[in-house]
């Protein structure tokens, strides 16, 4: 018997079929949302292979928890929350195994971001989209995972401070200060990249 064609079936119906054990329906969901789920894992972990492995783990978890999906958010958003939580667990595990990054030490030792001079020139002005992405990618890679995660949840996932605090299990004050530091540090890094490219 030929496989069903699910290409025009909506996510909700695919979830229903997958709940009944239809792996073809689940595969269609994976195909539709794999880039977003991988992108979120990569933005937090900054490592290709880890992001692939963790995003696959997220899909397996999603399959196991399909009965918990109530449709309050879109399926893509629900899956994104799963991968974010897996990444946070992984980053916490990694952090326990190594010393804190320089950024975290700076943050705890007196808030260098408060003394940074204000940058009057927009370091990304006039850049091509592809070049801008490349620079932001490099700059994000230089932030500590705590600062990067706050930035990712705020700018990419459009979460409010309260939601970020809940997701990261910290106070709203910590979210605000990490976000402030991350933005200011990123502005400096982008300026440095601009200088680098013009010399």
């Amino acid at each position: 018997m030929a496989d069903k064609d699910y290409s025009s079936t909506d996510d909700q119906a695919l979830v229903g079929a997958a709940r009944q054990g239809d792996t073809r329906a689940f595969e269609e969901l994976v195909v539709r949302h794999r880039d977003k789920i991988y992108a979120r894992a990569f933005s937090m972990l900054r490592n290709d292979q880890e992001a692939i492995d963790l995003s696959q783990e997220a899909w397996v978890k999603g399959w196991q928890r399909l009965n918990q999906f109530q449709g309050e958010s879109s399926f893509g958003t629900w899956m994104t929350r799963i991968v974010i939580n897996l990444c946070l667990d992984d980053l916490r595990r990694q952090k326990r195994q190594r010393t804190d990054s320089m950024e975290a030490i700076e943050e705890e030792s007196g808030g260098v971001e408060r003394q940074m001079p204000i940058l009057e020139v927009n370091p990304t002005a006039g850049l091509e989209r592809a070049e801008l992405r490349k620079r932001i990618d490099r700059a994000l890679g230089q932030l500590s995972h705590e600062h990067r995660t706050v930035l990712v949840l705020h700018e990419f996932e459009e979460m409010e401070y309260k939601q970020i605090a809940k997701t990261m299990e910290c106070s709203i004050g910590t979210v605000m200060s990490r976000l402030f530091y991350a933005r200011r540090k990123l502005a400096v890094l982008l300026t440095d990249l601009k200088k680098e490219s013009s010399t």
Partner: protein
Amino acid sequence: MNYEEQLKLQSFLDGELPEGDAREVAAWVARDKQAAGLLAELRHTREAVAGSDQAVRLPESREFYWSKIQREIARLEPAGTREARAFSLWDYLRRLAVPATALALVAIAGFVANRGLTGGGGTGVTEFSVSVGEALTYRDYAAGATLVWLSYPADNEVAQNSSSATLP
């Protein structure tokens, strides 16, 4: 500008301030060049980052990526497990039927034995032995018959094929 004011500017940018506070900050930014400068810097960074991950693509083929997920799903939940769950009520009733039948047989055998003892016919010597969850034996020496009821789990092949036997 102190740190609290800096964070307030950021909250203003992110729309996290109550309406009254937001109006106050807007007025402050309008008259303070330093505050306006910081707000502009934060805004530029926010705008540059937003949407910068939209072009990220999974660096693996669809088939390769899915195959690992599929294998893991199959490992966790072997094929047919879900179908088997649909018959769980039947299995439950079937399991319940075994001890119920055994009890009924004990009652019948007791009744027969009692009648044999009080009826004066034959020697009236009977014997029961019940092993919970395994077998029930009724032996009537007068009739020279032995009845054995096996109550193995119903999905046991032996039990399905011969749940009772009469021995000489």
